[in-house]
């Protein structure tokens, strides 16, 4: 079976500024990839190149069997949902959804009704975008992109303009819709939690390429490099070669051979029903948030790092594997 998308050695540079550097990945039909990375790392440029809005300096992109590298956006079967809904204000909800379908010759009344049902907005079909909430508008934008029957759907931080409650609700809802319809999708975000919710595979994007392309579980178990460790905050980076999972660090010695470091308690808070200590570790010049099993009224603390849980990025040199 052919891949839904195959990206081979894509590079993009603006002058001497390299945005994408020999990037490779491929997705099977129905796969969901989240691309996560810091703001300004080039995620959106990658998405624009995949959509055909920008062209790569070198490399090839295949959709199914077809090489689309030199096709422009309007002739590629790629849907794109933007950060803002960008609905046409002078068109009704229904007209907005139909717009792309009519242009691409894929319009049918049944499909529009089906999409309106899928986004739970059948009642608003004759309303205008200004009469909808931000979340509803973004759902219409999603339906508009899906109405063109794209081979792959690209989503560029589509929830970033919504308030936190609406954002969380839409994340689950969109993920369910993509799963139900078996849509191949690439979701770009700078939010780590969102990346894990929206993708089965996560591409940690930085410095022109994927620092790691793996499932959330693999990234948790075996982060590829110091950048991934620091970006996800699941581990404490001890030096450029070694890290320790945060949940193995404790405030009391439970095993012999633990490495002890001095920490200053900055603040305590509560999250998920547990007390959390926010501490500063002077030796590593790092701030950490750790589960605090007992109340503490400030001052300094010792943190214990078990030696058997200090891992190396190069597993052959590692002291052990995190379980």
């Amino acid at each position, binding site marked *: 079976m052919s891949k839904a998308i195959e990206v081979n050695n894509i590079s993009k540079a603006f002058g001497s500024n390299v945005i994408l550097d020999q990037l490779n990945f491929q997705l099977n039909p129905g796969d969901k990839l989240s691309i996560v990375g810091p703001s300004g790392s080039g995620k959106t440029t990658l998405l624009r190149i995949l959509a055909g809005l920008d062209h790569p300096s070198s490399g090839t992109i295949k959709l199914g069997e077809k090489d689309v590298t030199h096709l422009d956006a*309007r002739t590629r079967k790629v849907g794109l949902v933007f950060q803002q809904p960008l609905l046409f204000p*002078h068109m009704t909800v229904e007209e907005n959804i139909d717009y792309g379908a009519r242009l691409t010759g894929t319009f049918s009344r049944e499909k529009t009704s089906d999409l309106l049902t899928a986004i739970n907005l059948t009642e608003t079909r004759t309303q*205008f975008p200004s009469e909808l909430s931000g979340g509803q508008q973004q759902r219409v934008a999603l339906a508009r992109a899906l109405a*063109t029957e794209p081979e792959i759907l690209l989503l560029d931080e589509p929830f970033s303009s919504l308030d936190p409650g609406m954002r969380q609700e839409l994340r689950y809802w969109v993920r369910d819709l993509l799963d139900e319809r078996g849509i191949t999708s690439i979701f770009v975000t700078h939010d780590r939690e969102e990346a894990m919710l929206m993708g089965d595979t996560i591409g940690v994007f930085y410095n022109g390429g994927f620092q790691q392309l793996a499932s959330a579980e693999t990234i948790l178990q075996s982060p590829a490099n110091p950048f991934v460790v620091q970006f996800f905050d699941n581990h404490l980076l001890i030096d450029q070669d070694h890290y320790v999972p945060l949940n193995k660090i404790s405030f009391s010695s439970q095993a012999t051979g633990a490495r002890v470091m001095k920490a200053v308690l900055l603040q305590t808070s509560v999250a998920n029903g547990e007390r959390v200590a926010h501490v500063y570790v002077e030796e590593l010049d790092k701030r950490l948030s750790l589960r605090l099993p007992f109340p503490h009224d400030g001052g300094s603390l010792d943190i214990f790092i078990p030696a058997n849980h200090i891992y190396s990025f190069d597993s052959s040199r590692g002291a052990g594997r995190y379980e």
Partner: protein
Amino acid sequence: MNLYKIKPWLLILPALLFLILPAYGLWAAFSESIKDGSDVTLTYYHQLFTSERFLSSLWFSLYTSLTATLASMIIGIFITRSFAHFLTDSLPRLSVWLPMLFPHLVFAYVIILIFSETGWLAQMLTMIGVLESPGEFPILTRDNYGIGIILAYIAKEVPFVILMLFPVYNAIPPAYYDVVKTLGGSRMEQFKTVEWPQISTVVMEIFFILFAFTLTAYEVPAILGTNFPEMVSVLSYDWFYSGSWEDRPLAFAAMVTISLLITLMAFIGYMYVNRKRMRALRGRL
């Protein structure tokens, strides 16, 4: 009545006071155009609409100003949409808008200098051998088709069109173009879906401003126009200042007719523009 209620009227008062002048002028012209001694008459209007000179002048004026207005708008829209991102810098913007500082008279004179039978263009074409003599150069000024008038108005009004349209183009989020592209839309579709709903109200306003102005302004057709047919403004001026007192009410009747025509068009346009503006901004009217 509290201050809150009368405040809008206070604010609009200077504009209303200013309107007294043209309103009085229009009323005075109208009353002169229907006066025959102490009697009321429509004789002058009857004379006007049976006068071949006036009807030719009216059609010539409508054709000339409509052509100049539409050409200015098409060129202005094309330049604005092509160069909007350059116009954000002050130097290119200034260079485009600078021609607005010069009076229409200057533009009429420049058209004569360049396009008359003895103008620069005729001499240059003769010099490089395209024409044998400047006399072969086509008549483009003081011609029967109003070409000189149209050229002068285009040169003068295009910067005005750009001035009006630039802020609108500047406010269109560029991502809308990408939306249309990813939905399969061509460049024409981008214009139709993204730009036209935004600019159509301003385009309509520009049309009425330019059309009303070019239809009634005097100096350009006086310099670049021919004796027959002549623009209605030139004809009215002639009637007003001709030796015969009997022609003066005709001048008033002609101007009242044109004013009514423009007022009617502006009213219809205003109603249409308001609907379009609300539709573009909010969708529902």
